[in-house]
């Protein structure tokens, strides 16, 4: 696969207001980001990570089983 084809497969466009784009274009010059796209990608990834929620990874039944092993190994009393 050529580099161009790979790029078009892995990237897509989103629409943001032109005024915002221009603002970002100016700001990006003061950062380590190479383009507005890489800055926006970074911000979106940061945002998505914040949405991740804590949840239990074991059921009540499993909990007892796990505790049994932890006790046997001396990790809990």
């Amino acid at each position: 696969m050529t580099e161009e084809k790979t790029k078009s497969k892995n990237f897509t466009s989103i629409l943001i207001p032109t005024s915002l784009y221009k603002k970002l274009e100016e700001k990006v010059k003061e950062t380590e980001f190479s383009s507005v796209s890489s800055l926006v990608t970074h911000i979106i990834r940061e945002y998505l990570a914040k949405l991740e929620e804590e949840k239990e990874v074991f059921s009540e039944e499993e909990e007892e089983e796990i505790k049994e092993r932890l006790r046997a190994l001396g990790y809990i009393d």
Partner: protein
Amino acid sequence: MPPPHGGRLINRVLKGKERDRRLKEALELPKIKLPSEYIKDIENIAHGVFSPLEGPMIQEDYLNVLENMRLSNDLPWTIPIVIDVDEEEIKTVKEGDNITIICLEEEKLIAILHVEEVYDYDKEKHVEKVFGIKDPAHPGVAKTYGMKEKLLGGKIDLIDHSANPYYKYTLWPVETRLLFKERGWRTIVGFQTRNAPHTGHEYVQKTALTFTDGLFINPVIGRKKKGDFKDEVILAAYEELIKHYYLKDRAVLAILRTEMRYAGPREAIFHAIVRKNFGCTHFIVGRDHAGVGNFYPPYAAQEIFDEFPDLGIIPIFFKEFFICKKCGGMANEKTCPHPEEYRVRFSGTVIRKLLQQGKKPPKEIMRPEISEIILKWKNPFVE
């Protein structure tokens, strides 16, 4: 506690009747034999240590990891987890088939792999991307050049475990997560190590522990390079350190059974992801994390974290600590104004040399109890 990487803790360990049924099936399938280092990673996948991976990577994920340090679903992932095979070994296997994985050393049936893909790969590209160099003096590069020609991708189902001399230190993410909860820890800092602890390590751990609830000491147990501490020495030394110098309800020692890749910055991200899966909220990254020789700039493994705002675990960066005779204790370049002549640095080479000569390093460098434990071994280092 952070959710597992990708939001779900992977569990591909077969149990009960389903296990019995699949075991019967496995006996009839084509078989490939893999060395124990691969088997450990298959167990890690099945128990969620490498969540969200459910098996060795398919080509799309593999290439994305090489090029973008992310899986094809955009989740951060920096180290390829693959199974390499010879064409001859899989000549009867088609994509879509199931095969049985046998532990080479034990001749034991371990897992079923649902082969989604068999693909070629470019070793030059692999080493350049993962290790940043092509020099076979680097152990990871040398190992890659020695790999077989094809890669298998697909999901695994674990039927049995390989022999584990460190069973009592082996906890899976589902267990550490419950353990941390039982202890009432809301913030947990993970510490990766492949060394017996000197006082610099202890200082870093305790500094991080001052602003978290618990410390998870998680040594890598598996194939290492010549001159590294032997696994049993690392564990005995940490047992001793915790016994004498840590509060028991503030520290947990459990192992990570995998090999060191020595991939420096990329491996630091991988190590952080694994500790996130164990339930850590924070992860310590020191100088030259997962480095070897002088292949990586000293703080490259810290700088790479800037590229991952979505990692889901907070890295804690430390500059290299040393003992400053003028300050009268542990310091680093951020805290100590004195010139080099007052500084005593932690040199692994010097510590190793002293121990090899049967001598204890100075007590300011290594706790006497730790030195004594290490010196009980005729040769505490990997040969």
